């Protein structure tokens, strides 16, 4: 069960995002650690485990966010669902696929978040959000995807060796 180590990793990612990465500014923005982990796992392990990580990671993000509970869960679960689709595996080698999906998945997740906030009656400024949050986050997740791949593929290989970590 990938959640044996998935829960601690995602919890750690969400907490680090909340207490540390919120103050970090790289290229005018900050990466989305939990989103990157979820997308990476969906690329490595496929649809089921990706969506499971998206759901759990989303819960942790919701818990560490103010405002409506569930927007992160919906966004990350749906993005993992898209990224984990079988046709994505025909898009080239894993590293290229992951980098592409890290960028595009981040864009999609943030648009879903904004869409849900609009539906729930929150004011949203698309231009400002694209420029200062979504764009930098997508670029940084794209650039950081090799690191998350190296980290998570290690867990993936350990899980395969032991034979007890798959869903």
């Amino acid at each position: 069960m990938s959640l044996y180590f998935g829960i601690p990793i995602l919890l750690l990612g969400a907490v680090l995002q909340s207490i540390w990465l919120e103050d970090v500014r790289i290229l005018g923005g900050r990466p989305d650690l939990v989103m990157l982990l979820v997308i990476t796992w969906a690329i490595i392990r496929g649809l089921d485990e990706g969506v499971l990580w998206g759901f759990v990671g989303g819960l942790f993000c919701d818990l560490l966010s103010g405002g409506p509970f569930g927007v992160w869960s919906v966004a990350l679960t749906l993005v993992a669902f898209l990224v984990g689709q079988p046709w994505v595996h025909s898009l080239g080698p894993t590293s290229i696929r992951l980098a592409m999906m890290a960028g595009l998945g981040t864009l999609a997740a943030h648009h879903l978040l904004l869409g849900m906030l609009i539906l729930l009656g929150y004011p949203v400024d698309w231009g400002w959000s694209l420029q200062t949050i979504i764009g930098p986050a997508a670029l940084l997740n794209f650039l950081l995807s090799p690191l998350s791949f190296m980290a998570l593929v290690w867990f993936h290989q350990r899980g395969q060796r032991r034979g007890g970590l798959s869903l």
Partner: protein
Amino acid sequence: MTRRSRSWLPYLLILLAFAFLVLSEAGLLGPFNNALAYIVAPVERGLSGLFQNIGELFKTVRDVRELQETVDYLQEENTALRIENIRLREQYVAENEQLRALLNFSEENPTYSLVGANIVERGCEIYPCGEVLGQGLNPYLRYVIINAGSRDGVAVGMPVIAGGATLVGRVAQVSRQQAYVQLVNDPTSEVAVMLQGSRISGMLISRPDGTLLMTQILPDETVEVGEIVITAGLGGLLPKGLILGQVESITYQEAALFQEAVIRPAIDFRRLEVLLVITDFPRQPMQIRLEEP
């Protein structure tokens, strides 16, 4: 690398995620949130402390630290003196002006029967002190999480201040161990405010990018750049006189019904560390007396 999909699981989880969103909007997720907070809060608290310690390690150069401490001390003293100055002005100068105006009114209207009344004593019972554990993860909303919760007497709606009398926000959600504070610069925050000198009233809102705006200023009012914005205390939701910022610029369009002022916040919302929650404060009594015929 991929595994055969169990077709029902992703759809079930997507449905569950949507269910959480709907239940949350219906206000039915409180116990679930509390249960999850029991898992997350200790981890967050531990890591928050760890990161603070690591941060301290970077300041080990002795001279730099001493210099930093001196600067911090002087800044704190400066802030305290400024706040004290503003409060004194609020308490005495504005009150003096109001009393003079009332006196003028009574002199100009000798036929009126007037009854003098004092404003109920100002003062706040400030109790739980919350350390900021982390920023809310949703980049489009502005919340902080503090380590004071319902066990400390914190409840939804309570005002939260920093640095003496600077309003930071209001408690939006509470679990037993922690509370989510909706900052003043959250896009859905609204605070009834007034300008300290001119007593012009309005509403303080925030743009999605976090810029503070004072709106609903009547077009014939004259707003001066640099005026201090304080809470108006209307409705008894917030104490009167908490500081929010200073007027930075004023915009008025001919066709608009109201003027708007851009407000420079009194504090940097990204550098909040320790906050105070006001659990109770004297509210001005509002009584409507119907005179008997």
